[in-house]
């Protein structure tokens, strides 16, 4: 299965009214995520990167410009997109299995297939055996993997990740970065990830969108033309990291 959905973000701007003053959160954001790509957005806090994800997922529909998914303007949440937040946001009163199954609630898949699909995705994130566990019985990394399963179970075309590993310790983090890569390849889903960790972005992405704050705008787009077995200490890797850091601090 090949993902064929492209995400076009065209001159998107967003303004908040704060005490009768217009505050630009996003100004003229313009880039494209190609089908099957892994794209990261990095930037200092306050650059509007999370706001942009909220627009794309459809939690917020008030903006100027166009966010197009296969040419159609986004006007709310839809089956073609899903999101993983920084906190896992699993429902504490539901088991892993029940949480993941909620991802299929809006789907019209027959019940028999749903159970199988839930099991497959729990397997995909390597939580087999923890189906009946409650979120508070899981470690942070495991809970986040369950959240990824919930996001993927309805087979979205685009997976949005809002600093998904930001709350995890560095060992778990490094492990889950590799897991993300594996899942991304296995599911051939298009990924758009927000992170503040430049190294993480270089390690995972095909392309990095660097943003700067006040107003939130694009400072530059850095394509990562490295093959997918990346060594963090390799010269090419460090060169890309330097380019991104330079754009961030220019």
């Amino acid at each position, binding site marked *: 299965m090949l993902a064929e959905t492209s995400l076009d973000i065209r001159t998107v701007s967003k303004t908040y009214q704060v005490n009768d003053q217009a505050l630009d959160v996003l100004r003229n954001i313009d880039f494209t995520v190609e089908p099957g790509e892994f794209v990261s957005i990095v930037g200092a806090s306050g650059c509007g990167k999370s706001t942009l994800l909220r627009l794309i997922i459809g*939690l917020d529909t008030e903006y100027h410009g166009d966010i197009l998914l296969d040419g159609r303007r986004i006007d709310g949440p839809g089956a073609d997109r*899903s999101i993983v937040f920084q906190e896992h*946001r699993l*429902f504490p*009163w539901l088991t892993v299995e*029940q949480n993941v199954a909620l991802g299929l*609630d*809006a789907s019209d898949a027959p019940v028999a297939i749903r159970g199988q699909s839930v099991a497959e995705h729990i397997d995909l994130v390597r939580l087999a055996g923890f189906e009946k566990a*409650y979120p508070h019985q899981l470690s942070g990394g495991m809970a986040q993997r369950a959240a990824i399963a919930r996001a993927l179970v309805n087979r979205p075309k685009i997976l949005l990740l809002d600093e998904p590993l930001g709350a995890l310790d560095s060992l778990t983090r490094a492990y889950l970065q590799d897991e993300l890569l594996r899942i991304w390849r296995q599911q051939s889903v298009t990924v758009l990830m927000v992170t503040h960790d430049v190294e993480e972005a270089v390690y995972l992405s095909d392309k990095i969108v660097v943003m700067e704050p006040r107003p939130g705008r694009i400072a530059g787009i850095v394509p990562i033309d490295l093959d997918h077995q990346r060594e963090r200490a390799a010269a090419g890797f460090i060169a890309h990291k330097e380019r991104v850091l330079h754009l961030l601090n220019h």
Partner: protein
Amino acid sequence: MVDQTVSEALAKPAAAAGPGRDFWRGIAVPAALVVIWSAASHLGLVDSRLLVPPERVALVPFLDADGRELWLGITASVLRMLAGFTIGILAGGALGLLMGVSRFAERGIAPSFTAVRQITLFAWIPLLTAWFGNGEAAKIVFIALSAGFPMALNTHQGLRDIPIAFVEVARVLRLSRRRLLTQVLVPSALPAIAIGIEIALINAWIGTVGAEYAMGLGRGVGAFLAEGREQFRMDIVIVGVLTLALVGFVLNTLLRAGVARLMPASGNSRR
């Protein structure tokens, strides 16, 4: 609830404490009071007609003809209370649910609800007796009102305080209304609803005795108390008062145990 067996199994270790030091500490104050009470009446520090010695009070429900009325009284009161309490939490819960789920209903009902809630419950009595007479119906309606208000209030509050993070997840997953209600809203509001039920029970019991005392006629602990006062039988009055406390305590303990069993063993249920 969802997956009872698992949640029960997980809840067991925490609930297995049993009567320990807390129990004995809790019993110390009442025990001391009984000793003081006994000393005061036996040493003639107070008129023993006003403060009947404890051992005589303890025997009244068994040996005294008027005192034996207590048992039927308790039965009548508890049944009456359960009727009013059940109606109250169902109606109050439904009202709270409606206000918590529908903005439209909230805007329409909440202001009136808040206004009506300002009326002291006992001020309802003249109105209720005028509408329903002095019999069972008026009492049960009064008890239902006592239980219904805190139930509605807590249910409403619990539904309003659902973390925005969960609401966003529900929106992103595009949950159906039914799923949203049963899997997200109600479970999230459950701790608040449980507190509502607890307060409703306490209020219902207070309301029961209040109704019996104020609306006369018929059996009940309240009527038992009123009778004792009329006949200047302080032993009966004291028995009645102690009964109120004891029954209230037992009801509350039973309810808590019931609620603890119903709550799923999640981070959510700890309060």
